[in-house]
């Protein structure tokens, strides 16, 4: 399966990319598992406040299928 991952705000800087695709040798993947992989791979810190959206719907947990889009959304407060 292939999924697309988007990074926003400061985590796009930590990751050094704003979008990437990930290929996995399975039919579906647990959100928590993908999250852990991405945070570790890109050395993303302060992860508790980061929200995740699957196909543009905010989700705390769930499963990803091939073709899904996962977004990591950090809060920011500049004004």
């Amino acid at each position: 399966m292939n999924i697309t991952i988007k990074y926003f705000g400061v985590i796009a800087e930590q990751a050094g990319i704003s979008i990437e695709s990930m290929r996995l040798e399975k039919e579906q993947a647990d959100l928590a598992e993908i999250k852990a992989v991405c945070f570790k791979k890109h050395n993303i810190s302060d992860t508790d406040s980061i929200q995740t959206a699957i196909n543009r719907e905010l989700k705390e947990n769930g499963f990803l299928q091939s073709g899904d889009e996962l977004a990591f959304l950090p809060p920011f407060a500049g004004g």
Partner: protein
Amino acid sequence: MKEQQRYSRQILLPEIGSIGQSKLAQAKLLIVGMGGLGCPAALYLAAAGIGHLGLLDHDQVDESNLNRQILYRESDIGQPKVLAAKRFLSQQNSRINIRCHNEQLTIENAATLFRDYDIIIDGTDNFPSKYLINDACLLTNKPWVYASIYKFQGQVSTFNYENGPTYRCLFPQPPKQQLNCEATGVVGALAGNLGMLQTMEALKIILGMGQVLSGTLKLIDMLTMQDQLVNFNRKQEGINSILNEGLKRVELTCEVREPDKVYLDIREKHEIPQLSGEKIIKIPLGQIPNRIEEIPRDIPVYVVCQSGIRSQKAINLLESNFGYINLINVSNGVESIIPRQT
């Protein structure tokens, strides 16, 4: 007649018309924070004929504000922002009422202030204020239009609109540290764009037209010109705890990078980021002479403030008046001792 002429180009729109224009004239909006978001929002709200505009900010105009806070001129430097903003807006539109609140939003005044208005516009630049606006809007049953910026990106949404989701439903907790425009940099046109979007949201709420960004976060990236919408739901649990327990200040804490070092933090209580750690001694500069016994003499003590200037003052005081010889200045300020996010 004159009134009709002034607003004729928007009255022409069937979604507005004369009835809509009188709704705008009756509307009461409070802008919290007259910075990069609040200034452009206020300008367009005034121009559209919002009848009652409240401006809240406790700050004075600084030269470094002028690249984005477009209501202020060079001659306003050092003046209270709300007064300078009112001067500008009154010249733009002399027919509207503008009320200045030259104060900080606090857990004590927030609900009382909000009760006098229909909609709250968020022009703040820090998490504690955004959570406070959210919670006070919940308690007073007001919708609020949120925006935040980070470098070239922005977020905008409308919370607590007709029992819709709130800021806590989107971001239940703040990050451990926050980076503001002073720390990360900001281009005026991005803040302006977000302020405009907030204005548009407010107009839609007042006029009952279009789709309000309730339960939807709009994300914008000005470098790629891409945007996207993310939907989210109301989480009653978090809302109930605010309704039951009332307002509490959200504190940001941040652990120091080297937790074994002993730090003397001489900043005032309200300054952020708040440092957390066992070896941090917090004594505001003014209290140092009365709390000398809390500062060790036998181990290296790193003295820290926001920028490195006040901490040097503290060291001078401690060395010349109290004979300290073990103090080291954190010359680049608090940001240099916490984990970097950029």
